């Protein structure tokens, strides 16, 4: 008899497509959180596969901290245009201007934490009942406990000790009025799976994922790109380095790594050899051991 085996990437793909279709079927007004990072780009690619030949039946939502790498924004706009997607931008700057969020002070000020308020506001004003995000369980230990369908109360809060059991692939998206869900279609993917899949599917990425020359400075062993919204200490100086980014978040808390990997194949080799997690370059997780859990409880995705 012929053997009916799927490769691990095909099996992960099938699982994620199944989850995305469940979202379209079970919710009235879902959205896909889109940061312009590789994980959300893969999610969008999976969504296109899930509904082909129809268009993706939900909008992309970008919670924009205003602290972006220009390359990411350009990429985002090009992609939205190419695939005829709908883009909704929730602006952290606007939340600050309206007095709903207060900017952090000091040299390590980041707008990462401020995304939560803007995200919740965007969900509320657009009446979204489910937001898909590209979070993965291998990223961070609080995420390892996350469900595919993560229930949030009417304040958007996560209650990790009281999660619904998730058995087989039967997802329960039932909820009361005002409650919402966060949904993570690529929960079971690892950083390596994502890169291999990008290579296999020839998915386009923003250029900053590949090695390039950039003016950077180093603080607490993290390499930051020089930007006009990040204050440098008097003793800090910039230099030109060949770097690439492993994750793309708010530019004020995302570090680069020194690298000469300028192709997907080289990046995969580098990821296979690397001995630190990709969130090791994220200052937002270094604040405390439970930094991610605390942010998620408040409504972060």
């Amino acid at each position, binding site marked *: 008899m012929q053997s009916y085996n799927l490769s*691990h990437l095909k099996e992960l793909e099938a699982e994620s497509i199944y989850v995305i279709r469940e979202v379209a079927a079970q919710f009235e007004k879902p959205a896909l959180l889109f940061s312009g990072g590789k994980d959300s780009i893969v999610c969008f690619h999976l969504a296109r596969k899930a509904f082909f030949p129809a268009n993706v039946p939900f909008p992309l939502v970008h919670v924009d901290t205003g602290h972006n790498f220009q390359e990411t924004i350009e990429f985002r706009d090009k992609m939205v245009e190419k695939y005829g997607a709908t883009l909704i931008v929730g602006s952290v700057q606007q939340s600050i201007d309206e007095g709903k969020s207060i900017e952090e002070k000091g040299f390590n000020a980041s707008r990462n934490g401020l995304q939560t308020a803007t995200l919740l506001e965007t969900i509320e004003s657009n009446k979204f009942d489910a937001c898909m995000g590209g979070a993965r369980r291998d990223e961070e230990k609080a995420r390892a406990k996350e469900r595919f369908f993560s229930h949030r109360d009417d304040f958007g809060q996560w209650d990790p000790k009281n*999660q619904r*059991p998730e*058995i087989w692939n*039967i997802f329960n998206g039932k909820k009361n009025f005002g409650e919402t869900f966060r949904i993570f279609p690529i929960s079971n993917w690892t950083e390596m799976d994502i890169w291999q899949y990008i290579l296999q599917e020839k998915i386009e990425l923003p250029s900053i994922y590949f090695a390039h020359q950039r003016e950077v400075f180093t603080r607490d062993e993290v390499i930051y790109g020089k930007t006009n919204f990040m204050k440098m200490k008097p003793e800090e100086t910039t230099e030109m380095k060949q770097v690439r980014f492993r994750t793309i978040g708010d530019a004020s808390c995302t570090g680069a790594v020194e690298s000469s990997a300028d192709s997907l194949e080289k990046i995969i080799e580098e990821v296979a050899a690397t001995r630190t997690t990709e969130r090791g370059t994220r200052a937002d997780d270094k604040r405390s051991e439970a930094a991610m859990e605390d942010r998620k409880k408040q409504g972060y995705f």
Partner: protein
Amino acid sequence: MSQEGYLDMELLRFSTAGSVDDGKSTLIGRLLYDSKSIFQDQMEAIEEASKRKGEENVNLALLTDGLRSEREQGITIDVAYRYFATPKRKFIIADTPGHIQYTRNMVTGSSTANLAIILVDARNGVVEQTKRHSFIASLLQIPHIVYCINKMDLVDYKEETYNKVRAELEAFSSKLDTKDVRFIPLSALAGDNVVDRSSKMDWYGGPTLMYLLETIHIGSDHNHVDRRFPIQHVIRPQTKEHHDYRGYAGRIAGGVFKPGDDVMVLPSGFSSKIKSIDTLDGQLEEAFAPMSVTMTLEDDIDISRGDMLVRETNAPEATQDIDIMLCWMNKKSLVPNGKYAVKHTSKDVRCIVKEIQYKVDVNTLHRVEDNKQINMNDIARVKLRTTAPLFIDKYNRNRMTGSLILIDEATNETVGAGMII
């Protein structure tokens, strides 16, 4: 790793269970560490946390305990998922806590697993927890069970001790409905027979745990015989280009589908032929479980979510009376004659609990018929009556069309997991 290799790996999902102090965290830590899946920053973080807690050795359990309250109490509350890969396979571990809410967590972690690792302390042999874990693994129809007889270093790597524990396990597991049972003597702490073959147990001729995980045959774990395609979503682009397109999207639950195949639509009973199997990457010649695809049919038939495409000569049973083994997962006890929402494949119905036949004592496997109060973590045989027919297979025939969940209609919580008998 060569590129051809890693783009063509298989995925093995396994669960791990064991009682307190039997070295489960050490074993997982060993698998991750020896396969180079623990990163330096993770290692540094747990080294520091172990030091802060005044522990002498690096506590590998801190790797998997993701929540603040778990780290504070030093216990694992919830199933944690861990990932690692070797050049041969990618692995997903569902690490299920041994003592707290064991049934609920183990059922959750086992529900999608191809293989269960059950740890046994070589000094203690079969204990109550071993029986419980084995029973749940067999109830959930995990195709392969691997008993890891751990702490062999503490019994001087003696063959007689291993043989004695193995005989006990064989006697017990023969009563269970598991197709493939394996035994490995190992020491997670010392690393014997985990990744590297032990030089201290020459008498053992079998594979190491890692070799077994990398090579065990998982190709037949899905049902490729009975055609089952539950419709998840109907795709209607309504664009100029695809004006009349009606595609049925779903994940294949069983069998092999090819264009030209005859199919019957449930519940309507109409017959048609598969016109095409569509994906973004082009049309497929065939599709099988667990692929997610979109099918079009030759005839225009009214089909919606919750319907199922099957083969006329091999259809699932369509019935409103359903016998299940129920695992209860909520603090609020099961209400006899209570009404619950049911999810089965992509179909939503309601049900009434018609009869509680018996409870199972998960330690002795005996039936308990005089106490029918079903509390959290209980397993019971129950009869349901649903508001509309479900298209069911027995759970031991098909894990996807043979499973359902019960939902409390007031709280919307998932309260029960049912395996159809």
